[in-house]
């Protein structure tokens, strides 16, 4: 670790202590009411309690697992369908023109409300949450895949054609890798949306999951519980972000580093 990085890490730690310490101080001194704004020590105790004694809906890891499962399935489903449909429409101008107004209409619907329909249609199991997460993810990935498939460099495309590429060769060797830059960039925000879909789905009606715990903590006037689950969700998203970033580095190894990246490395 060189001097610069240790300074950065030192400043980060100081800032974290300042925020959490300030919060704790302000709530215990009574400047802000911990009944509304929770308290770091209370959140910590609640988390401890969750892991030690479980929750009213079963063990805490089980709740985490349920939410993660819903988010991951929804993420994978939405990504796969988004890539296929996006690239297909990117390659087929006619189809893209026909479907354009329909996509705009569907995109204009606040998609969270679809969750209500899914819960009614598919019950309180994990299916409606997976579907809601998938719908949220689909649109992000779809628009990026669509754009990526259309922004293929003409020289590269012509080169592949002259070298004898069939239609399928062009898709596999040119269109997909080219669109991949766009698609992977979208995956970062996509997983965040998958979690939103899963948690909102659980709030709308579920038997397990972190969203259900948040709803229950809210009903019990337990802000510590709400914050505790919130932080757990944030930690989960960060872990997945990290995995996606590793994946991105592997898949996009061919890309020249941008100036900003070179400075960071």
């Amino acid at each position: 670790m060189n001097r610069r990085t240790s300074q950065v890490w030192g400043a980060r730690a100081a800032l974290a202590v300042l925020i959490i310490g300030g919060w704790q101080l302000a709530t215990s001194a009574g400047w802000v009411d911990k009944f509304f704004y929770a308290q770091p020590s209370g959140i910590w105790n609640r988390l401890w309690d969750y892991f030690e004694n479980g929750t009213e809906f079963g063990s805490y890891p089980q709740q985490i697992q349920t939410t993660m499962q819903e988010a991951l399935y929804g993420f994978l489903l939405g990504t796969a369908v988004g890539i296929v449909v996006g690239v297909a429409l990117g390659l087929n101008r006619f189809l893209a023109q026909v479907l354009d107004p329909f996509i705009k209409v569907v995109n204009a619907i606040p998609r969270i409300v679809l969750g209500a329909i899914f819960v009614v249609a598919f019950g309180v199991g994990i299916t409606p949450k997976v579907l809601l997460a998938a719908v949220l993810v689909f649109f992000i990935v779809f628009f990026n895949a669509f754009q990526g498939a259309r922004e293929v460099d003409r020289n590269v495309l012509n080169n592949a054609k002259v070298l004898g590429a069939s239609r399928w060769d062009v898709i596999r060797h040119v269109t997909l890798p080219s669109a991949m830059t766009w698609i992977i960039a979208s995956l970062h925000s996509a997983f965040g949306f998958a979690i939103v879909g899963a948690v909102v789905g659980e709030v709308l009606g579920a038997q397990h999951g972190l969203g259900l715990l948040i709803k229950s903590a809210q009903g019990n006037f337990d802000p510590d519980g709400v914050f505790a689950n919130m932080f757990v969700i944030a930690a989960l998203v960060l872990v997945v972000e990290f995995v996606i970033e590793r994946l991105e580095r592997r898949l996009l190894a061919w890309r020249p580093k941008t100036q900003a990246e070179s400075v960071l490395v």
Partner: protein
Amino acid sequence: MAGTAIEITDVTKRFLTPSGEVFTAIRDVTFTVEPGQFCAVVGPTGCGKSTTLSLVSGLDRPSEGTVAVGGQPVEGITDGVGFMFQADALLPWKTVLQNVALGLVFRKVGKKEALERARDWIRRVGLAGFEDRYPHQLSGGMRKRVAMAAAWITEPRVLLMDEPFGALDVQTKAIMSTELVQLWEASRPSVLFITHDLEEAIALADRVVVMTSSPGAVKQVFDIDIPRPRGSVQEIRFGDRFLELHHEIWATLRDEVERAYARTAVGAAA
């Protein structure tokens, strides 16, 4: 594999501009590249040189007239054609080895054989040791070598080159040109080479076609009778015959260049 003839007969190509006007890129272009001949096309910017190439490759269709390669009219991508583009056209997500092997992979050659032949070609263009680099990790000259190997590996009967060395510095350009001639003399495909550099055209080619500017048309065709092998491209330039031909062709080309320049200068002032 020896080259086959390229016959371009009364070809006109029109485009629709975004504003809806018809733009004639080339008009009534007729010339022939004999089998195994190295033919250079020179002309001012915007004279439809690149358009002519895309018609021969089959990437584009003529509005009128016919283009034939080896006696067969061109419909769709022409078989047995190699193309070197002006801009970078390597697949940036593939390594040097994968890029060079691409033409073979598309022709369903077995993976092992394709990679083996690609390695051989990479060695021939002097890039041994760079097989696993990505294009962005190479210099402009090295990328051109990769493009050259990728175009030659399919043993094309016709090689189309669109100012392939235009973006290189003078020294690299001279070295690459000499290497190109060596490769060409080994297998003798027919070459259609586009450039705006008259010296390069005379040094490399058996035949030089001078084109007028927009719409592009053939102004005059010169046969270059400098004997082969000509040796280093840089030294040909000082030969007497070279200077005579240069003088003669430049006299024809100069009017066109000046007219094209006057037009863009007026366009810029307006």
